[in-house]
């Protein structure tokens, strides 16, 4: 039986694999001879190709940002940013042509560590080069070329996605009109890197990791990847969010300590709901995500710092950019707290760029950027409505 799909959904979508023959020279100096990118699009590209939006995904995201793949699967969840993408949603598919891709090094169809290396006939595994945000953006620019998009109406992303947006504005200052940077940071802090290192150690110390060649052994580092994801989850949720999520049945002041079976077990099994939740999330993730990709992307995050080429002055990096900026942070985000977004804003102001900044009150921590928080959704809608108005024929300052 076909499922019922709400009228503000993009509906059933089919991703496409796009092949690139041109070699890609990476920041590290290494080269990828050829590669594929898995791409999903929503809406229609207009005649002058001015209404395109690029959506950049974060650590565990992919090209599937909205809608569904399977008309018959009742239990299928929509794409990861479905609350924002669709007809009459903030990224309105009646007005915009929206492009989202699985980044290079990913594990959802684009060329990455789990792809077959044509030279050896085996998966790349640990031989896959480290990819930086700048390399991603370079590959995204080639995708734009292929789609005939000279200039994006907007490039939008949250978290690591927001870092790609910054890199777009720096590397291709004339190829985007608006940059929307959500729950991001100008670079990782020592604490952020420390969390990433714990995640990496969890994976690499798993006996099933086999130095990254686990594909050859027909296995994968399930426990390691699970642990990595559990650490990540703690980092993405706020203390408040955990109290609310795992303290539903209890009185105020329970601190989210709801028990799973209503009593203590006096053993080392799962006692509290938070434990079983993390375990479940970790297990689900480990069965769907490639461990080498996880390692790679945590490195991509650690290496991100566009100020390195500009005497460590981020404002200088932004000087050439021509776009307008919208920066958004969330009050309880302790992965990339509001002050990290304000750093971005202050550097943009210093570079005399046009910037708007919002600090959204939200209990959900870093994850808030994926959630339909009313003020946040309304702000995106207001901003994007203006972006759409610039597209209208005869609109002033449309360039």
């Amino acid at each position, binding site marked *: 039986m076909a499922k019922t799909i709400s009228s503000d959904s993009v509906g059933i979508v089919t991703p496409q694999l796009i092949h690139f023959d041109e070699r890609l020279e990476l920041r590290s100096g290494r080269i990828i001879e050829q590669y594929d990118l898995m791409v999903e699009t929503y809406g229609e590209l207009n005649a002058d190709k001015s209404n395109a939006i690029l959506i950049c995904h974060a650590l565990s995201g992919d090209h599937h940002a909205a809608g569904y793949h399977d008309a018959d699967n009742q239990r299928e969840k929509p794409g990861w940013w479905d609350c924002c993408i669709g007809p009459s949603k903030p990224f309105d598919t009646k007005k915009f042509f929206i492009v989202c891709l699985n980044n290079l090094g990913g594990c959802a169809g684009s060329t990455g560590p789990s792809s077959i290396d044509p030279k050896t006939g085996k998966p790349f595994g640990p031989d896959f080069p480290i990819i930086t945000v700048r390399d991603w953006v370079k590959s995204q620019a080639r995708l734009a070329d292929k789609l005939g998009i000279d200039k994006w109406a907007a490039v939008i992303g949250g978290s690591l996605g927001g870092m790609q947006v910054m890199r777009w504005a720096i590397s291709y200052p004339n190829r985007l009109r608006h940059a929307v940077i959500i729950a991001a940071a100008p670079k990782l802090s020592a604490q952020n890197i420390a969390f990433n290192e714990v995640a990496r150690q969890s994976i690499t110390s798993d006996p099933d990791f086999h130095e990254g060649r686990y594909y050859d052994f027909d296995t994968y580092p399930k426990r390691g990847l699970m642990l990595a994801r559990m650490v990540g989850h703690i980092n993405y949720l706020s203390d408040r969010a955990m109290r609310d999520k795992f303290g539903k049945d209890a009185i105020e002041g329970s601190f989210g300590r709801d028990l799973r079976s209503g009593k203590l077990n006096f053993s080392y099994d799962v006692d509290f709901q938070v434990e079983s939740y993390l375990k479940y999330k970790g297990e689900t993730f480990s069965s769907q995500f490639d461990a080498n990709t996880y390692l790679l992307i945590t490195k991509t995050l650690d290496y991100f710092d566009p100020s390195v080429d500009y005497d460590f002055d981020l404002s200088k990096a932004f000087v050439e950019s021509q776009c307008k900026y919208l920066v958004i942070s969330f009050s309880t985000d302790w992965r990339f707290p509001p002050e990290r977004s304000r750093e971005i804003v202050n550097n943009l102001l210093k570079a005399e760029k046009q910037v708007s*900044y919002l600090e959204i009150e939200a209990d959900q921590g870093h994850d808030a950027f994926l959630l339909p928080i009313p003020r946040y959704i309304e702000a995106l809608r207001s901003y994007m409505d203006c972006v759409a108005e610039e597209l209208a024929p005869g609109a002033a300052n449309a360039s």
Partner: protein
Amino acid sequence: MRADLEIIQQWIEPGSRVLDLGCGDGAFLAHLKKEKQVLDCGLEIDTENINRCLRAGVNVVEQDLNKGLSNFESNSFDTVLLAQTLQTVERPDILVEEMLRISRNCIITFPNFAHWRHRLKLLSIGNMPQSSSLPFEWYDTPNIHHCTIRDFDNLCRDRKIKILHRTVVDFNHRSSFLMNLHPNLFGINAIYHFTR
């Protein structure tokens, strides 16, 4: 457009950079963008006003004036404007100094507490004055530092601030003979254009 804003905009150069502290719904900046092609930046803390600014295509930064303006570079704007907000901040004197650091062209408007109606109310009934320009009760007012035209003149004198223009207007933002004769007695709203 409000007559006080009409007065203010003559001091703003076309194509210049304008910082509006407490920009409200962004209507004035939107007007300046359209008429004078200014590069706009507004600061605001009210969430609904911030959304109105976004909808109007006005650049708006969510920032509390009481937490300072240290994130703005010295001399980074051509004009800094503070309209009907001076009396609501914790340290008006510090804010005025910060405005002068950020720009050489500063504009402030505020309700004149020494207007004769206010004086009369305090003198006769003994209540904190309320009027159409000061509609709040003493306990719920956002206005925590009322000041008069004489007070602001004194501040400018003490801090060696050069007043380029001083205009007083009534509630309809019009000026009159009496107001020009005794601004501190008859002026409802004060408009200062100053530099250092």
